[in-house]
């Protein structure tokens, strides 16, 4: 079926609507998962009224968002304002057509799958920037620009880690990353057996850590959520949106969460491939659809675990400042990702054994973490308290911390004296 024909188009349209509904359902489950998990972390109950265990809460939220009035600032550009959500969601959906759920269960495999995924996922930035700019609100503009700066900074480590994966597999097809690939070069045969037994996280721990952190930043989730930080830019680019248009941004955010988690699982944790073939576990020969179903189940299970990790971070870590965020991306993640790439290229070129990768990169990772932590310690020591004490000592005073003011008037007088 290599000719363009209308049967193909009809099947494709049906399949894609199916995929869209599937993803929307996943998003509903994710919102419930996130709220329930955050609630447990904060010792609350979470959604519990609508349906058993609050399971129907996301559905109720959808109806609420649909029935809300769409409000737009009078001065904003009408057409661009309404187009921006589409420009954010469509790339987030387009990435999904080349992501395999199981062997052969993919809408349209691409030979250039890895390049396609990183290229398309970057397009969403345009929508965010447009949403921020056309809202004609100061917070939105700041949020949109922040989103662009953050997303482009953390795009580079992701691309470079993906390049290292491509060197290891010697292919840019996402299916080869899971099932293995064989390249014959002259007399040398590079066989790569797939990720079933040894996932890439074991071969390339540096890459896995970088991908996870940069992916988290790419999503704009805590601790990297400066572009829609409520206490700084209120809602960032989505500030002026409401109702269905806001829901589309929300949908895109969760599509992206799911895609980054799925890519982490595909690239580093073996995707749908079971540690040993399902036949050997269940002891009977399985039909093709059964193998596929087991693969999808295993893939989704691992993806939900990774997403759970993201939600756990959200419940645990405070938000980074923008200077910390940019410095972390450019001074730590990007050099490290290039080290990972060059190391991988050297290992493949000089035909070193593959265990040389973790043997070199784990100490490297530990050393970087130690150095970065030390550098941050120094910065903390020159905080406002230290500066205050230093100043006091220079002035000849012995007062380390100001005593509590006895009365309101005294506090006022001291304030005026400074």
């Amino acid at each position, binding site marked *: 079926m*290599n000719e*363009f024909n209308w049967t193909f*188009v009809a099947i*494709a349209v049906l399949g*894609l*609507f199916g995929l*869209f509904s599937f993803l929307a359902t996943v998003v509903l489950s994710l919102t419930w998962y996130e709220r329930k998990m955050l609630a447990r972390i904060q010792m609350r109950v979470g959604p519990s009224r609508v349906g058993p265990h609050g399971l129907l809460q996301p559905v109720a939220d959808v109806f609420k968002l*649909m*029935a809300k*009035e769409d409000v*737009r*600032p*009078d*001065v904003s550009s009408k057409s661009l304002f*309404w187009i921006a*959500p*589409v420009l954010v*969601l*469509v790339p987030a*959906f*387009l990435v999904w*057509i080349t992501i395999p759920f199981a062997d052969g269960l993919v*809408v*349209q495999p691409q*030979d250039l799958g890895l390049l396609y995924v990183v290229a398309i996922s970057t397009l969403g930035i345009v929508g965010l920037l447009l949403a921020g700019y056309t809202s*004609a*609100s*100061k*917070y*939105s*503009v700041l949020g949109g620009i922040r989103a*662009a*700066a953050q997303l482009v*900074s953390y*795009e580079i480590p992701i691309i*470079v880690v993906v*390049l290292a994966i*491509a*060197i290891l597999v*010697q*292919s840019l097809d996402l299916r080869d990353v899971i099932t293995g690939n064989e*390249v014959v*070069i002259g007399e*040398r045969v590079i066989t790569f057996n797939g990720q079933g037994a040894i996932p890439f996280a074991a071969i390339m721990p540096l890459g896995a850590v970088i991908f996870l952190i940069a992916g988290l930043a790419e999503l704009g989730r805590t601790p990297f959520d400066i572009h829609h930080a409520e206490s700084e830019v*209120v809602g960032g680019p989505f*500030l*002026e949106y409401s*109702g*269905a*248009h806001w*829901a589309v941004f929300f949908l895109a955010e969760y599509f992206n969460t799911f895609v980054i988690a799925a890519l982490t699982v595909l690239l580093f944790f073996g995707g749908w491939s079971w540690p040993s073939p399902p036949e050997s576990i269940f002891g009977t020969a399985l039909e093709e659809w059964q193998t596929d179903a087991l693969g999808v189940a295993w893939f989704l299970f691992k993806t939900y675990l990774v997403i759970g990790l993201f939600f756990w971070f959200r419940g645990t870590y405070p938000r980074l400042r*923008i200077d910390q965020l*940019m*410095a972390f991306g*450019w001074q730590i993640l*990007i*050099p490290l990702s*290039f080290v990972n*790439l060059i190391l991988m*290229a050297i290992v493949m070129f000089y035909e070193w054994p593959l265990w040389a990768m973790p043997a070199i990169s784990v100490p490297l990772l530990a050393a970087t973490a130690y150095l970065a932590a030390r550098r941050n310690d120094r910065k903390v020591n020159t905080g406002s308290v230290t500066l205050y004490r230093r100043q006091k000592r220079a002035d000849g005073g012995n007062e380390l911390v100001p005593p509590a003011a006895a009365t309101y008037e005294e506090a006022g007088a001291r304030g005026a004296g400074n």
Partner: protein
Amino acid sequence: MPEGFDMKWAAVAIAASVGVVAILGMFMTSWMISPKRPSAQKGIAYESGIPPREYRWSQINIRYYIFGLLFLIFDVEAVFLFPWTVTFLKSPAIVFYEMLVFLGILLFGLLFAWRKGALDWR
């Protein structure tokens, strides 16, 4: 063109239109069931409760443009690296060393920007 090229990218185009149609469907549904009571108050941009000033686009720090430029350099470099990753083992050894030199120049540039303070947000 390689085998099946047009089909593969036709699928991308179809997926894009399906996405647009699905979103427009959502918008239509919402438009049909949502109330429409515009008022002057609703049309004001949010600015912490005070009326917004005449000029609504805030000024933007020059730092963002520096990071934009740096990103452009690294992104273009990634496009060069993608074909290299799958071909350098099949090519003469010079291809491998040449790309190391290229990456070296690039990382030297990053180091230069770092020493100049372009990577620190002040």
